[in-house]
């Protein structure tokens, strides 16, 4: 069976990184009609460029058209879907039946994938959409494993979220953002009110904030169940997050196929993933109803992660020198880790730092400055450097 690791990307750079690090498919949003309205998103020209590039690598690309349309939003939708059809994207992810209506009325050859926004949580609901020609359904994140199995048994292709942020409520069933901020949660404006704290006349404020989803421990189970698409959440995430998450899950899936997955790697993977997202994560609804362990309760300061130190631009094999683009501060003496899609993770102590002119520096302290560091081990363009926190396996 072909399993698909599906990664969200918010730019062409992130798209290339995701594919390089092991994504089988990517999903993107256009400038309109997508539930991340405030992400940078792709222009039509960029969608075409992205599609051509993805297909040149024999991989797949899906476009989200997943807002809940108000009457005025429908203007332009038909032309947009016709454009997506012409450039032969691999499918649209939608939640509003207006999208399906236009696709069918105009005989567009677009595979339809139903968004988690419709909260498909039982097999009959999946069958409803299958009968309308929908090829794939992204099941509600509230589905446990028995429900997922029952939906797979309908014969529809099933896509499951395996990692990333959770909503507190059923997707599509929450307008807290509309009430508290006037920002429409179902048209991409969600202000994430579920991450706020509320007064309840008690010493502790009322929290409804969920931890992230992490299905590392259940990937084998999902593969055995014949889930086809394994979806990561997070079109607004950094290239470091995308690279880390993609590589970890790709490795896990490969280890499942090769029968080499063990608890040691699973624990390592969880540590790496939690660290790069700066959030805790659990498997949420998969094998039980979530309790308080699946939520946050203190007022969290989400300090952005400083682990990502640099993106490797090139490697001089003769002089054994890495040229990299700095992304966070590091200095001589630091012990770092280098990882990449084809580079086995290894530790390196920074012994020297040179600027582009070959002058010695004590530190790399300007964002995106280009520096050079000695490294005996061969690395590749687009490998990454991070602070060493966990021992490599």
């Amino acid at each position: 069976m072909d399993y698909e690791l599906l990664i969200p990307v918010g730019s062409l750079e992130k798209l290339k990184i995701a594919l390089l690090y092991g994504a089988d498919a990517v999903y993107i949003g256009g400038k309109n009609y997508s539930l991340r309205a405030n992400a940078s998103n792709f222009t039509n020209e960029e969608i075409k460029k992205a599609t051509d590039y993805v297909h040149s690598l024999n991989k797949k690309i899906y476009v989200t058209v997943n807002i809940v349309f108000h009457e005025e939003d429908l203007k332009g939708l038909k032309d947009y879907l016709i454009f997506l059809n012409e450039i032969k994207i691999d499918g649209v992810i939608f939640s509003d039946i207006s999208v399906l209506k236009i696709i069918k009325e105009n005989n567009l050859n677009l595979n339809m994938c139903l968004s988690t926004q419709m909260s498909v949580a039982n097999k009959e609901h999946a069958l409803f959409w299958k009968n309308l020609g929908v090829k794939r359904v992204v099941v509600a994140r509230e589905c446990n494993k028995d429900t997922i199995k029952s939906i797979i048994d309908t014969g529809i292709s099933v896509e499951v979220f395996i990692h990333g942020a959770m909503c507190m409520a059923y997707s599509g069933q929450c307008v807290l953002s509309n009430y508290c901020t006037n920002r429409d949660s179902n048209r991409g404006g969600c202000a994430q009110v579920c991450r706020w704290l509320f007064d309840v006349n008690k010493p502790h404020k009322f929290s409804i904030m969920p931890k992230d989803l992490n299905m590392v421990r259940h990937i084998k189970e999902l593969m055995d169940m014949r889930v086809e698409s394994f979806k990561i959440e997070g079109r607004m995430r950094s290239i470091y997050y995308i690279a880390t998450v993609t590589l970890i899950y790709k490795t896990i899936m490969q280890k499942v196929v090769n029968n080499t997955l063990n608890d040691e790697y699973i624990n390592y993977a969880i540590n790496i993933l939690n660290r790069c997202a700066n959030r805790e994560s659990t498997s949420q609804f998969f094998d039980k109803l979530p309790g308080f362990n699946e939520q946050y309760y203190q007022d969290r300061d989400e300090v952005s992660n400083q682990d990502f130190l640099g993106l490797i631009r090139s490697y001089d094999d003769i002089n054994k020198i890495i040229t990299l683009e700095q992304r966070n501060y590091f200095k001589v003496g630091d012990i770092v880790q280098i990882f990449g899609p084809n580079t086995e993770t290894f530790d390196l102590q920074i012994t020297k730092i040179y600027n582009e002119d070959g002058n010695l520096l004590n530190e790399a302290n300007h964002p995106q400055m280009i520096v050079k560091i000695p490294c005996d081990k061969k690395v590749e363009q687009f490998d990454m450097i991070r602070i060493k926190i966990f021992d490599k396996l």
Partner: protein
Amino acid sequence: MENKINKFLILINDLKDINTYKKMGINNFAVYLKDFSIGYEKTYTFKDIINFDNVFIVMNKILSTKEIEEAKKVLGNIPSNVAGIIISDLGLYNFLKNKKVNVILNLRHLGTNSSSINYFLKMGFKSYILANEITYKEIEKISSNCIKPIILEIFSYNLVSYSRRYLITNYNNYYKENLAKNIIIKDKISNESFKVIEEKENGTIFLSDKIYNGLKLLDIDNVLFYFINTSFIDTKYIINMLKDLKENKIPKIPNSNEGFLFKDTIYKVKRGE
């Protein structure tokens, strides 16, 4: 106003109130069906309502596969006094479409354009309940574009969020507290407050803490029903409101607002905001 009151569909909590409303000219009632509803004050079985005519059944819960199978058993024999079934889970469609019963669709916040609504109406749904987060002008346009008369919610504590988590129990367990299963939470910055109700077998429901007063929607045409959800609303407010309407007075509703009727929502934030 009499012809408008004829179109009122009242979701009631106490069956005894039916006679009171009938005396006011209302003949359409709805109740939440036991085990298949959320956001309820009370639920009923088919047996409980057997002596009442023209009653709509509300099944607004998102169902698991197991619950769908249970629903099919309960719906195997729909009594003749049931005027229709209002569903929120499309998983019930295939089963109900072959039954001789009116099926009304309520996808809650997803009922926001006539193109989608008409698609469902063409599939055979009797009617569709529009979302509450759209403006008066949008509602006017949608209803004029719909191929069948639609349903407008005009009076209720709006459903704001629906979670499968037990958020009050989780809070109590974490902090060793004893919050009741029905509380008010408040955000000081937006000044918004919400009723939060934890329901056994369902999870947690958030309702607006202000009564939604959509009475201006009584001007809209192409309407099958104007829907009043009396859950958690003191019956006296409903009775007084109806009396005022019958006398062509503007009802004064305490602790209420007009929701999003005259307030556009945004979704693209300008830079710097």
